[in-house]
Structures are given as structure tokens and as C-alpha cells.
């Protein structure tokens, strides 16, 4: 597998020399990594890492339902905007389900999230297997959303990701102060009159937005890793929020860039897995070499 040809492909992808299609893929995925690192830092600080995982897994039945509806209406089940709309709706329904289970049914939050994640994913798996029995010829497109497949990414798809990334960055920069107070001390924020629930909703909206556009590249199972691992890595290097946000974006972008280049060289390996492995490598190396002062201060407080 690791032949000289593979290495040559990897290096040329890394330096954007591997042809137009690969350049589109690498840059599109890099924009995704940047946005995922940024919103992931807020999700981590708001202690919503698990919720992010619930939302991304819950997109599967939405994708399948959107495919069924589109195909039933005679349209193509391959249309990315249609599929991603279905994914986003399912993620929102999952978020409401978790909220309902904790508030009305009085289930502990972790149990509510575990139940929601597995039921939604199970429903998606059943719908997916049903779709595969239809043999329409376009059902193969859906499975790529589970583990990610960058090779199928078109220029238009890359623009969708880049647009979502720019929107997420603008929202995060504009609302940095509001997100900061809600992540650090929501009660104090509420006592000052800030609409904490609304700010939380905005935060989860950009998290869902980035997760949904990232499904194609990284896949629903691993998108959480591209959000949380760069944030955790960044935290090892700094104890300032703004620096952490910048570093987290940087680690996310670098993981995506290198991972997508690897994916171009190893087309059979799932792109999401490769990207996440690179992010994990950044984390492990940072754990070993990041300034011990920051980690010591974190440990002290516990």
C-alpha cells in the first residue's frame, strides 16, 4: 500500500499539485477543518461534546428520508442541498428529543443523549438498508455520509462547505463575547439579562451547520472528532480563549489538509478516518511537547 507512488500522490496533493479535482477537495476539506475547529472549541467549553455527537449521528435518518422523498418525487436522490436539508432537520428533531427527555421525562442528560443517538442512528440504518433494496442505482451515494468520502466532492460541494465555514467564522467572531459568558457562567449571563437559551441555540446552530456540511467529507461518525480533538489540542497550548479559538481552527484546518491529501493518495481508506487520525496525532504530539505550565495549572484546579 505504501508504495513510492502513494507517497508521490500524497506529497503532490499536500502541495496542491495533484490536479484540479484534488485541489478542490483539499481546499474544501481544509475550510471544513477550520470551521470545525472553531465551533468545536465553543462546543467543548460549553460541555456539549456529546451533544455534538448525538446531532451528527441523528443526521442519518434525515439523509435517508430526504433521499426517499426526493426519489419518490422523481428527483435525484443525489442532490446535496436536499440531502443536507434532511440531515439538518433530523439533527434539530434529535436536539428537541434530548431536551424533551431531560425536561419532561426527567431522564439524566447522558441517558437521554445515549438513547436519542442510538434510536436515530438505528432508524437511519434501517431506512438505509431499505433504500439499498430498491436498487435504483443512486443509493450508493448515501453510505458515503457515514464514514466520509472526499473523492466524490465536486467543486460546487466545496463551495457549499466554504460558505458554511465563512458563515460559522463570522458568527463566532461577532458573538465571541456572548458565547464566552454563556460557556463560562450561564447563570451570571442570565442574571445580566442575556438570553442564554437563544445564545445556546445560535451556538448549536452553527455546530449543526458545520457538522452537516462536513458529513460528506468526514462522515457522521467522525465529524465530532474534527470538532473536539483540535479544541482539546489547542487547550494544551494556551489558557486564553482567543488564542485557543485561533489554534483550534489552525489544528482543524491542518488535520483536514493533511488528511485529505492522504485520502487522495489512499482512495480506498475512508477520508474521515484519515483526517481524524492526523488530528489525533497532533493531540498526542502536543500532549508530549506543549508547555507543562498550562497543563499543571489545569490539573491544580481539580
Amino acid at each position: 500500500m505504501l508504495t513510492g507512488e502513494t507517497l508521490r500522490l500524497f506529497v503532490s496533493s499536500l502541495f496542491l499539485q495533484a490536479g484540479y479535482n484534488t485541489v478542490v477537495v483539499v481546499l474544501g476539506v481544509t475550510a471544513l477543518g477550520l470551521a470545525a475547529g472553531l465551533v468545536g472549541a465553543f462546543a467543548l467549553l460549553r460541555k456539549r461534546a456529546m451533544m455534538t455527537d448525538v446531532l451528527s449521528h441523528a443526521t442519518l435518518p434525515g439523509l435517508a428520508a430526504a433521499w426517499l422523498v426526493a426519489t419518490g418525487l422523481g428527483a435525484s436522490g443525489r442532490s446535496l442541498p436536499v440531502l443536507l436539508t434532511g440531515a439538518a432537520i433530523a439533527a434539530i428533531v434529535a436536539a428537541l428529543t434530548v431536551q424533551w427527555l431531560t425536561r419532561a421525562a426527567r431522564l439524566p442528560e447522558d441517558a437521554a443523549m445515549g438513547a436519542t443517538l442510538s434510536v436515530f442512528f438505528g432508524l437511519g440504518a434501517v431506512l438505509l438498508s431499505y433504500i439499498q433494496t430498491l436498487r435504483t442505482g443512486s443509493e450508493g451515494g448515501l453510505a458515503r455520509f457515514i464514514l466520509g468520502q472526499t473523492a466524490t466532492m465536486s467543486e460546487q460541494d466545496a463551495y457549499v462547505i466554504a460558505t458554511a465555514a465563512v458563515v460559522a467564522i463570522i458568527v463566532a467572531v461577532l458573538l465571541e463575547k456572548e458565547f464566552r459568558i454563556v460557556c463560562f457562567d450561564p447563570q451570571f449571563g442570565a442574571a445580566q439579562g442575556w438570553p442564554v437559551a437563544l445564545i445556546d441555540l445560535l451556538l448549536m446552530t452553527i455546530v449543526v451547520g458545520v457538522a452537516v456540511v462536513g458529513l460528506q467529507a468526514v462522515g457522521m461518525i467522525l465529524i465530532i472528532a474534527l470538532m473536539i480533538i483540535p479544541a482539546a489540542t489547542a487547550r494544551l497550548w494556551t489558557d486564553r480563549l482567543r488564542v485557543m479559538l485561533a489554534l483550534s481552527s489552525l489544528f482543524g484546518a491542518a488535520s483536514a489538509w493533511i488528511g485529505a491529501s492522504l485520502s487522495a493518495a489512499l482512495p480506498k481508506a475512508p477520508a474521515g478516518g484519515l483526517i481524524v487520525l492526523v488530528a489525533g496525532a497532533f493531540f498526542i504530539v502536543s500532549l508530549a511537547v506543549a508547555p507543562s505550565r498550562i497543563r499543571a495549572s489545569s490539573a491544580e484546579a481539580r
Partner: protein
Amino acid sequence: MLQALSAADAGATPCSVRGMTIDYGNGPVLRSVDFDAAAGSLVAVVGPNGAGKSTLIKAVLGLQPTVAGQTRFWGQSLRQARGRIAYVPQRGAVDWDFPVSVREVVAMGRYRMLGWLRPVSAAHQRAAVEHLDRVGMADFADRQISRLSGGQQQRVFIARALAQEADLYFMDEPFAGVDAATEQAIVDVLRALRAEGKTAVVVHHDLATVRTYFDSLLLLNGEVVASGPVDSTFTTENLQRAYGGRLAFIGGALAPAPGA
């Protein structure tokens, strides 16, 4: 003494609670609470564990749903008066490992003045450091908040409330687990606030210091046991009604109080 407050509300009560009842679904936590905090007074909220002290403060600030009752501030609603009210939550309520500096935490007290989307300006940064100075923490402005002692963290929370430049302060257990220097710093802040004609409502657990630190008392145990000036309400009889059999060993701490 009252020049800091506008003439219109010189006579209005900063905080007036009527008929407040709170129920999580297993019977009332607080039943029909009536309570007034007078302008320029330091009010101790005292009672056994589970008496509903923190719950009352949170409900007054709109952080906790109520079954019945209403609260007025200088005769106004919470929405109208929000900018004149400051809050010190319990220290344990936040993650002290959060990546912010002491100055940045204190600057959060200015967020309401800034409004949506506006970043913290240099002037507000300076104000944050000035308020840190009032609790003797100006030298720690650039330190990460996890690298502070418990008492220092508490003083940062007090400075953040001071940065709100309010007229009415709610503090939830500010004296819990702090060192002597911090305790003195908080007492100094409370007295300075009173001297400016401002009002503080403080959840307090140390019966031995109620008489020295506070003017008024709100004694709770699921309902109001007693409220009013410390001199007339901080009595063994009232404390026995609030604490029941648990007062026996607390008695030692009451020694300085006449009649105990």
C-alpha cells in the same frame, strides 16, 4: 449618603418580594415568602441546609421558575431594573479551568453595558482592573483563573459584581471556604457599598458573624421564620425555630450574641 441614587427612588424599596412560592414538583421548597431589603442595608439570608436560601436569590433574579409571587425593584419589574442589579453566584457554579484571565472574568461584569456584538473596549478593561483593585487583586489581572486560591477566586467574583456598578447586590455564600484576608476584603466591600447607600443581600452560613457584618436578617427554613433588623430578629428563639434540634451544637457559636 444617597446622592448616588436618583431622587425618584429615594423612598422606594430596592427589593420587595411578595408571596413567592417555589416548587420543583415534590412539594414547595419555599412557601409564600414576603421580604423587603431596605436601601443602604446589608441583609444576611440565613437558614439550615436546604432552607431555600440560594433558591430564593435565583428566583428573585429570574433564574429559577416560581409557582407564585412577584418581586419589584424600586417599584419596577426585573426587566426594567436589571441594569442596577449585580450577582455573585456560588464559586463552585463555574469551571475554574476555563481559558480566561482574571481581567477577562471581571470584564464580564461590563457585558450588559456593552450590549450585543460590541467587544470589550480599553476603557472597560481599565474599569475591570480598577474594580479588581478594590478587592486587592489588581496584581493578578493577567493570571489564568485556575491559578488562584479559593479565596482569590471569590474576590474575582466580587470584583466582577462591582464592575456591574449596580445599586443592589445579591451574593450567594461569598464567605464560604475563604481565607481571613478574603473575608476581610469582602467585609470592606460590603461596608463601602453601604456607605454609598447601596444594598446587599448575602446568603451567609456563619452565625457567629451575622451580628458584626449585617444590619438585617432574613431567616429561612422553607418559609420566612423571621425578618427585620438583626438586633430584634437574631434571637435564640428564632434560630431554634429555623434550625430545630440542630441549634444545640451551634449554640457555642452564638455565645457573643446577647440572650444566647
